[in-house]
């Protein structure tokens, strides 16, 4: 497994500078959570890390290979990406949808036993086997989110980059997803990068939290340090108080910072 390195990333969308010099070295075997206010540049950073879009300046490398220079199919095998609001256009079955996660591996002859096993593992990990023959359109929001997560891990990529994968999940499935991300990182040794809005889930799942604001990295470190009143004030402009909880800090947002 290789390190994913962003070096001096600058991205401008229209007139707006969205990323203003991001330097980030991401290690596999860890869950890295990116938090930050709306418009901080989290999603833009994620699409640059996947190699889907070019930066105006700087580059992203996987090991010593620039991701933009990797052949698309090889990149698809090594870096998995789950966008923030994944669309599903046609009324396909859950099984067919999850199977699409194997696209970068499937040659001319169609899916083989390896592919089918990987799909089965992904569905098992997300508890979506029972939904197998359902049409995606008929799923509830949470079921859909789990199926899309299954799609993203069906390729068993070295790196999984997921944009807000917990949105729409109930507490029990949020916990399941958090444990799944941790297992992918800690047991399988993959790299997991997740953007989140919910600070409590971030505290629960992260080995490392990167706090972004206005296209820059404001803070980068273990959850306990990142989720401090000072950092939260600087990032979100709110006053917060932290209470000790059993599995992590409980964050109480008091008011806007005057």
């Amino acid at each position, binding site marked *: 497994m290789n390190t994913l390195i962003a070096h001096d990333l600058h991205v401008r969308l229209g007139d707006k500078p969205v990323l203003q010099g991001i330097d980030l070295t991401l290690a596999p075997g860890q869950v890295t959570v990116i938090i930050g206010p709306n418009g901080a540049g989290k999603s833009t950073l994620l699409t640059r890390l996947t190699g889907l879009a070019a930066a105006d300046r700087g580059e992203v490398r996987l090991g010593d290979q620039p991701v933009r220079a990797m052949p698309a199919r090889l990149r698809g095998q090594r870096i998995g990406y789950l966008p923030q609001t994944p669309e599903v256009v046609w009324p396909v079955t859950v099984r*067919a949808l999850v199977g699409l996660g194997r696209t970068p591996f499937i040659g001319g002859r169609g899916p083989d036993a390896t592919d089918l096993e990987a799909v089965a593992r992904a569905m098992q990990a997300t508890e979506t086997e029972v939904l197998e023959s359902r049409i995606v359109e008929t799923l509830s929001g949470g079921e859909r989110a789990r199926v899309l997560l299954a799609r993203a891990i069906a390729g068993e990529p070295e790196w999984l980059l997921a944009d807000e994968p917990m949105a729409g999940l109930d507490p029990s499935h949020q916990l399941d997803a958090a444990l799944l991300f941790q297992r992918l990182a800690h047991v399988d040794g993959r790299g997991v990068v997740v953007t989140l809005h919910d600070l409590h889930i971030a505290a629960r799942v992260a080995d490392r939290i990167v706090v972004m604001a206005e296209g820059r990295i404001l803070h980068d470190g273990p959850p306990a340090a990142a989720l401090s009143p000072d950092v939260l004030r600087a990032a979100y402009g709110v006053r917060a108080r932290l209470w000790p909880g059993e599995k992590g800090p409980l964050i109480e947002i008091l008011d806007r910072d005057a």
Partner: protein
Amino acid sequence: MSERLSWRWIAAFLIAIAVLSVLSLAAGKVWIPLDAWFTPDLRWTIIAELRVPRTILAIAVGAALGMCGAALQGYTRNPLADPGVLGISSSAAFGAVMTLYISAGMGSPWLLPVGGIIGGVVGTVLLLLFSGATSSLVAFILAGMVLNTIAGNGTALALNLAPTPWAVNEIIHWLLGSLVDRSFDEVTFALPFIAVGMAMLMTTTRALDALTLGEATARSLGINLERMRLMLVVGVGLAAGASVAVTGVIGFVGLITPHLVRPLVGSRPGAVLLPSALCGAVIVLAADIVVRILPSVVELKLGIAMAVLGGPFFLMRLIAMRRVTA
């Protein structure tokens, strides 16, 4: 839906094509019973010279239009897309109409189809130029609409300014779409283009599947969207362009065929391509037999027959959709 089910339907379509082909050889103003086939009967000439090419063309054109419709609906993720939407059909028609201006005194039967295929190819190139280097779907659809409008207006203008009214009359009849009096010349002319175009479309199946998840995810799965769009546009340009060039405009086949096929083999866009081609062949072949045996004085144009059937079909779809969403 399982792959096995899909193969069962493909087999069913193939059988239907075989049965309809036999019927297509026998049916028409002159019914030719089986015992007259392969005999030195004069009627054998009708079969060999007229009905065999007509049947082959019906199958090829139906397959081309059905597959083009399925591929375009998959790519644009729009269930109303067909070769007409992209302006390919109207470009080919425009190319054919332009032959009015050079045919004075040299009425070669080759002129019309050659003009059609040139129109289709030029339209394809323009479509790629209009839509730009990116794979933006909105730009692509708008480019198709622009091309469709330009070619349609060009056709109207060309007919308006045409030097000879007789030629105009002839070409309007041609534009309505028909398989009447086609010979092996048309078959050998169109078949290679259709075959190459359909083969190019078949290379896009995996990309079309991945596009179910949107462009960003498809790209992240290693799909080269620019390359697939090139294959798709050139494939449609060749297959649909050649079809229009030899038969005139036969609408609705590309539009309705994928809708008929999806309930049978599932909605995965790549899996719809081949069944749509076969189903398109069945539809055009069946429709062409029906227009031949209808007891009308003037034979109904195939393109008109399809259009007459297509309207109510879509109304039914709309009613069914409203029932689901209500």
